[in-house]
């Protein structure tokens, strides 16, 4: 009897305590007490969680770094590829602009037929002002055909192979082009030089030539079609005792940046040598 009685009393007390605590909790009376009791528990849990995070980072870090490095390499490769694409597109844009300008020139001069060509090289000799284009006899090119840019006259075909042609520029020292100066309509001869500068020679003394006058091909001699713009007078040299005047010229075409040119394919140079009188031998 005595042994059962203490266990019954213990159970009753425990039950009453539990019911009492529940009632107090439901009533909201043990909030401060629970906060006090949970604080060390929370601190311990936080500490344990941090230690676990650190351990997890330590174990998984090498794999993450490798992944990040791989992603970085992929992004760098993609960036390089995109940069190359940008350069290509910029080059295509430049070519498009040149072609658009050449098309405008062709439309402004519909009397001629044109064939576009790309400049692929220059003469290896520094004494000659020649360029090489990627069109040849297979494309209908013939020796003597004039070459123009979107601004004006550039030169003429000097030699032709099946797939390429050599162009003699008007800056070449051996070139002589018959021109006419606007607005005076005076005739003169345009010559090149070793430095690439062009000048006018044999301008009549009575011709009124001023800086800024336009220079066009005259068509004399049959080597170039008439009325193609060549350049502009920059300065005039006139001496009273000289037979002729001379002048410096700024060509309209930039020969250091030639990339794409037009060949006038429906112009045949005229050979006038058979018409020139031959002096009779005594």
């Amino acid at each position, binding site marked *: 009897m005595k042994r059962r009685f203490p266990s019954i009393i213990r159970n009753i007390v425990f039950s009453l305590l539990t019911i009492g605590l529940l009632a107090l909790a439901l009533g909201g009376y043990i909030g401060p007490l629970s906060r006090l009791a949970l604080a060390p528990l929370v601190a311990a849990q936080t500490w344990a969680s941090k230690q676990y995070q650190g351990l997890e980072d330590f174990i998984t870090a090498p794999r993450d770094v490798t992944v990040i490095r791989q992603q970085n390499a992929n992004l760098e490769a993609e960036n390089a590829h995109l940069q190359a694409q940008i350069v290509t597109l910029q080059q295509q844009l430049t070519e498009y602009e040149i072609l658009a300008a050449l098309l405008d020139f062709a439309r402004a001069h519909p009397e001629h037929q044109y064939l576009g060509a790309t400049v*692929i*090289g*220059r*003469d*290896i*000799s*520094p*004494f*000659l002002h*020649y360029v*090489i284009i990627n069109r040849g006899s297979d494309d209908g090119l013939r020796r003597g055909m004039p070459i123009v840019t979107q601004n004006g006259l550039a030169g003429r075909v*000097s*030699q032709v192979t099946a797939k390429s042609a*050599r162009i*003699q520029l008007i800056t070449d*020292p*051996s070139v002589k082009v018959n021109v006419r100066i606007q607005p005076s309509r005076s005739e003169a001869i345009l010559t090149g030089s*070793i*430095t*690439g500068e062009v000048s006018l020679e044999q301008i009549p003394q009575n011709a009124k030539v001023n800086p800024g006058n336009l220079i066009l091909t005259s068509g004399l001699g049959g080597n170039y079609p008439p009325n193609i713009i060549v350049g502009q007078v920059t300065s005039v040299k006139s001496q009273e005792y000289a037979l002729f005047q001379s002048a410096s010229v700024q060509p309209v075409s930039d020969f250091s940046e030639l990339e794409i040119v037009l060949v006038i394919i429906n112009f045949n140079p005229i050979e006038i040598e058979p018409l020139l009188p031959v002096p009779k031998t005594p």
Partner: protein
Amino acid sequence: MSILLAIPVLSIATILQSAVISRMPLLHGTADIILLTIIAWAVQEDVETGWQWGLIGGFLADFTSGLPFGVYTISYLLTTGLAIALRKRIWKLIVLGQLFATVVGTLLTHAASLLAVFIQGTNLPLREVLETITLPSIFLNLLFTIPVYILIQEIALRLHPEEIAI
């Protein structure tokens, strides 16, 4: 084998000369990679095909240039002869021979070109040619000659490996 090798090597030099080097003038002078390649080959110790390289290089240059055919061939062959003669006399300081042959070869090539242009009827002012073309060309050739020499020396060593005495 070394004669066959001349065709691709000198062809590449010709293409580079026309497409790249000629677009990089100093004043109005340009380097001559074909000339430098021929000189570099001719001064190599165990090479016996210098003349052939000079001939092939000259032909390629003449086919590419607007100058009368033969101008480059003759001047390159003369330069090759000079380079071979220097190799026999200055065999210990062959780089000096390379430099000397570069200067003389440039002068020879330019003199031949000037003569050809004069015969064709174009008078060029000599002083202007010297100041704006020849001197800058010599400078550029001297600048490029050592890298070209090193490259050609590598090729020559692969074709003619050094013999080691045991």
